């Protein structure tokens, strides 16, 4: 469970102040998949960074039920943030290496993840030898490596080609259902938000604030037929209209 109480964030001081997030209250239950959408600059990244404790809130607080764990959250950054001096496999294994998982076990896990994100054959490559999308896929694999109970993803698929993106969407959905992780996904695609989420949070810009949340009431597992479901199509068009209003 993630409990967000009166959470707000203001960057800078004096004249240069930017209110990135107005006070926000939300409770996200264990096993939920929350999609977050909103125009650029509305504080989506800020929200995730606050939850991950990468940023100190200006007011309010975030309570994680996983707070006692060594790593309460997993995070996929907006840009891949692979370590350029480590190969793809070493990057993916990094969270395991740094938490004392035996090498053999870790290698098995890496092999599985490499296949999952479709990077087979690139295990020994260095990040600079990969395309932007491939790097992002490696970063996703790394975030999944030590099986975090809460997974925060900041536009993880924006640099990935459409076909791979759909595959990864389906994989993510499957992983979520299988493991019961709590997932927060920031995305710019309303289809993706509706397709994956059990709830969609829509944020509005300047100052960043939560506009509405939708409970997505589509049957699981999601798949090709979800995309033809009238309820899905309705939700997508409603979200799209909302986004249009905000950006115009």
């Amino acid at each position, binding site marked *: 469970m993630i409990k967000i109480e009166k959470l707000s964030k203001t960057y800078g001081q004096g004249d240069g102040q930017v209110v990135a997030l107005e006070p926000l209250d939300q409770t996200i239950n264990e096993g939920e998949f929350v999609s977050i959408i909103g125009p650029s600059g509305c504080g989506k990244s800020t929200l995730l960074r606050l939850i991950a404790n990468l940023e100190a809130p200006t007011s309010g607080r975030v309570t994680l039920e996983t707070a006692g764990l060594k790593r309460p959250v997993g995070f996929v950054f907006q840009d891949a943030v692979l*370590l350029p*001096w480590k190969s793809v496999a070493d990057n993916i294994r990094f969270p395991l290496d740094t938490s004392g998982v035996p090498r053999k076990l870790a290698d098995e896990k890496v092999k599985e993840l490499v296949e999952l994100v479709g990077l087979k054959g690139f295990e020994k490559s260095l990040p600079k030898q990969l395309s932007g999308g491939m790097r992002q896929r490696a970063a996703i694999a790394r975030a999944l490596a030590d099986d975090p109970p809460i997974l925060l993803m900041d536009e993880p698929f924006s640099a990935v080609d459409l076909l791979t993106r759909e595959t990864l969407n389906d994989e993510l959905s499957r992983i979520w259902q299988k493991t019961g992780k709590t997932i927060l996904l920031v995305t710019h695609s309303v289809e993706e938000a509706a397709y994956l989420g059990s709830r969609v949070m829509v944020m509005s810009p300047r100052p960043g604030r939560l506009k509405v949340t939708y409970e997505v009431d589509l049957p699981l597992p999601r798949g090709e037929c979800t995309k033809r479901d009238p309820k899905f199509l309705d939700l997508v068009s409603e979200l799209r209209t909302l986004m249009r209003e905000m950006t115009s």
Partner: protein
Amino acid sequence: MFLKAIIGLVGIAVLWGVAVPIFDVPHYLLPGPIEVAERIIFLFQRGDLAWHIYVTLSEVFGGFILGAVVGIAAALVFSRFPIVERVLTPLILLLQTIPKIAIAPLLLLWLGLGASPKVALVAVVTFFPVMTAMLSGIRYMNKSYSDLSVVLRLSPWQRFWHIELPAAIPTLFAGATVATTLAMTAAVIGELMGANKGMGFVLATGQENADTATVMGMVILLSFVGWALFAILDYGRRRVEDRFL
């Protein structure tokens, strides 16, 4: 480029070899290149030049490693505790600006004529460029890397070993490359000021005996050793940059 450089070097040697007989320069002032080469070979054959080179190199390496380790550690402390850096910066700048040659006689006084004062002097001159390089490596490190280490809740040691040290390696190499030249100079100064072994000692003995061929040979040898150390590090630096950037 490389070929032309070699032509340049050979050209200088030929000019030197031709000029000596033409202008009839007395040998005790300027021996020809062949005479100098023969003297170096003789010194090797007599058996102790290799040992002197070994002595100097081990002073350079010992001091270099000592200075680099302390420099890296200091940079780490400064980056973790900015307050320590704030307080110590004037002191460090002051010590950095003091000409290191002023410290040399004190080291000789305290540590004697053996290898330790040279090692200490080399360590001192190595410390500053390495410390500065490491600090700027950490400071200008991609901010996302420190985010990653927060998300993964890395221990301070893991953070240093897996993130900060490798991220700083390019700048560290640049700093270390600067430091090699300083380190060689420091070792030679130490040996010239007081020693009973090492390349600087051979050099000083040559001067006392007015043995120009030995002195010139040692100068040339030292130049190449200095250049070789520099070239090795420079090569390492380029490899690292090619690999990661």
